């Protein structure tokens, strides 16, 4: 099974005026297809930067980021956008739904950008996904008529509507209460299992991390370790719950 995401010796630096702030300092990571992987780490550890690089919304200062076999550093802005549209689905911390569109239209939106399906096909696809996230009856509602959990479920549906290879979720449960957050993670997990879509999400919520089949731990822009398998994840999390910036497992 080949890597869907391949990160090699990536350095990402931001310049704040004259000061150069390193966000990632030489990180390498391989993500396999179908993984349900959590990027863990405290604030400022580089989680979001890593997701941005994988999500093609940002490019590395040095090193190589390959997404679905394409070297993102060598793509034009236009091609990066196309890559995002066709390969990646996004779930945001604050849902980021378009407030003037209905639930249906929000989910349909990426399909409209793609221009691959006709109206009937789009409708079928959107309704199927809304069914799966349990919001078929809310298709005509506007986001502000929904609860936080419902909104995030709409966002999940939107992320999956184009049948992307990768879904990136940045702190998907941070704005939700724990029960709702749990439900969202369950939803994501079941979709991961049904469709084999690769899920990469950042979180600092241990309960959320427990569901991952792999955990990538970051601290200070460096990779602290990568645990794959439930046992390893559980073990790693145990350590982290004591000391958030844990040492890499042996």
């Amino acid at each position, binding site marked *: 099974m080949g890597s869907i995401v391949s990160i090699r010796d990536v350095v990402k630096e931001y310049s704040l005026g004259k000061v150069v702030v390193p966000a990632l300092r030489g990180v390498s990571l391989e993500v396999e297809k179908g993984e349900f992987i959590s990027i863990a780490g405290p604030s400022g550890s580089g989680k*979001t930067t890593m*997701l*941005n690089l994988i*999500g093609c*919304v*940002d490019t590395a200062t040095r090193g190589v980021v390959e997404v679905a076999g394409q070297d993102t550093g060598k793509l034009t*802005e*236009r091609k990066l*956008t*196309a890559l*995002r*549209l*066709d390969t990646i689905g*996004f779930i*945001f*911390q*604050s849902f*980021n739904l*378009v*407030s*003037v*569109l209905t639930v249906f*239209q929000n989910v*349909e*939106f*990426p399909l*409209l*950008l*793609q*221009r691959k399906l006709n*109206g009937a096909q*789009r409708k079928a696809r959107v309704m199927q996904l809304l069914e799966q996230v349990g919001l078929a009856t809310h298709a005509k509602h506007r986001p502000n008529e929904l609860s936080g959990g419902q909104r995030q479920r709409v966002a999940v549906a*939107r992320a999956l509507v*184009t049948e992307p290879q990768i879904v990136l979720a*940045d702190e998907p449960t941070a704005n939700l209460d724990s029960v709702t957050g749990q439900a969202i993670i369950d939803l994501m997990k079941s979709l991961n299992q049904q469709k084999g879509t690769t899920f990469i999400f950042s979180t600092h919520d241990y309960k959320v991390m427990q569901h991952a089949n792999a955990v990538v731990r970051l601290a200070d822009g460096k990779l602290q370790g990568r645990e794959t398998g439930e046992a390893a994840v559980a073990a790693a999390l145990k350590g982290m719950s004591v000391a958030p910036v844990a040492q890499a497992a042996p």
Partner: protein
Amino acid sequence: MIARLVVLVQIALRNLFASFINFIIGGIILVGTCTTVVGGGMLDSLDRSMSRSVIGSVAGHVQIYSTKSKDELALFGGMTGGDPELAAMTDFAKVKTALETLPNVKTVVPMGVSGALITSGNTVDLVLARLRDLYKVRDGKNVNPDLADLSGPALTEQIAAQKAHVRQIVNVLKGDYTKAKVLLKKDTEETREGEEALARVSDDGFWAGFDTDPYGSLEYLENRIAPLVTDSDLLFIRYAGTNLDTFQQSFDRMRVIDGQKVPEGHRGFLIAKFFYENNMKLKNARRLDQIKEALDEGNNRVIKGDPVLERLVKENQAQTRDVILQLDGIKTAQVIAALQKLLKTEQTDFAELLTSFFTTDDQNFRERYDFFYKEIAPKLQLYRVKVGDSLTIKAFTKSGYVQSVNVKVYGTFSFEGLEKSPLAGSMCLMDLMSFRDLYGYLTTDKLEEMKALKAGAQAKEVSREHAEDDLFGGGDVVEAQATAGVIDDKAQLSGTGQAMHQEDLVKRVYSREEIENGVVLNAAVMLKDPARLKQTIADINALSEKDGLSIKAVSWQDAAGLLGQFILVAKLVLFFFVGVIFVVAMVIINNAMMMATLQRTQTIGTMRAIGAQRSFVLTMVLVETLVLGLVFGVLGMGLGTGFMSYLGSHGINATTDIMYFFFSGPKLLPTLSAGNLIAALVIILVVSSLSTLIPAVIATRVSPLRAMQTDE
């Protein structure tokens, strides 16, 4: 694609009502489009009504004139008020032949436009001339065929009536002098002399001895009293010298109203009916007409409380002098009797009677109007110039000396549909030969005359009396005293051979070649297809270049001078006004969209992250403003269209002379063309797009990273 657009429009529509500032922008766009539609429609309608007047009356579609001209052609007078100095086209026949080879040229009508001052005859002079004629009849020296049958008591009665008329005039003048002395404190040698003369002729002794030396007494009156009368006001008359035959054919809406058209090839003059009514009619009669027209107009207009009509009534009450001066003793007595009966009064003072007669109100107006035309008007000379009279027009020739021509007035005319247009109704028509004479251009007659002079032709002495008859006796409607309209006949008659010469000219018939082979100042070109005006102008100018015609073609707008530019100026003002509205709109839209964009960076960033290209974001912002512009623009267009259709069905009444002038009539029924709406639409689209350009570009610069940032 369509679904995408639907979503874009949906986003736009929903954002439209999301922000209060959009309603302000919308309001401005609404006002702007409404103004564009109404203003554009009004100006186009004005343009059409004016072009109808200008093209249909004198200008034709295109005017041509010599390239050697010092000034530009201005048919209705130029910037300085004077006539433009045009070089003559010396060989018009050649020009005409050449132009008529162009496919879109229908006809070419030769012209020259100018104006001159004329004075109507002095009332005293006219009365005295008639009295002199009557005395001649008494003495068996009659020269006036109209008076041939007069003798015995009828003659005595006529003489007495004319004498009473003179005494009546003297009374009026005495009154004037007394008033002038009080009001103006005028007490000069001149006024004293006038007073002395008036005192002498109002003395019964003067009249008792009148019959013993009528000619001596008449001479005293002519020399001392006639100059005191100032009723002969100057009148500026504008005319086009043209080939009357082709003019009548080419300007086919021209209709002869009174009299007849000038017989083919003849010299002659036609007065514009509008000008005739407004400037040559007895003022009291004209005012009665104006009041009647206003009352007949509908709209329930009444005299009471209407400032215009009340002013007309007041003027009629105060200005009865013209009527009094015109009536001789017999007629005065008749009118006084009739007025006493009508007004049921014993009043004997004529002026007082007239004043109370002209005191008209909504109850008695129609009765008084009918009475005036039935009882008083037939005794008056209603017009200063009558059909059949000869008109003497003096002008300065190019070389600076005064030249005058005598032309017979054959009738009055107007253009169908433009009867009430002061613009179309201000230009009288004169034959081209007289025009050339007047401005010192060589005509075939002049050539002959010069030949004759060289051959040593004898000058024939013409007495003053004879000359007058020779000159004015020929008209079919001319009455004996109908020399009104003649200007300064002394100067006219001082030339010895000229009088006979002039008489010949009136009778002479000219061939088309004679009329057209000669000097012409400008010419109207009538087109087959007016829509191809610009192209034809270019064709004419090219032809002139090629054949060396030295002529320049201009459109009727340019030819109309300042007047033609009016619409252009009005359009510029409108464009400026609309421009200001839209610039303000642009600035506000720009700011508002900038704010909206900055507020929505997360949404835009999200769209970008999800996979929207920059072009999509650009389209989204543009569509948003376009929708805003269209929604309010269409509302504004609807409002403007509604307003225009209201105006179109009700019409705008011309309440002032100036409005009359531009409306080419009493009412403007403005119409809206598709062009006006399309123009408004285009303006909205351009303004909306331009004003959103900067915010739209900024929106495309929003990074997809913005989606990852949480709003704190």
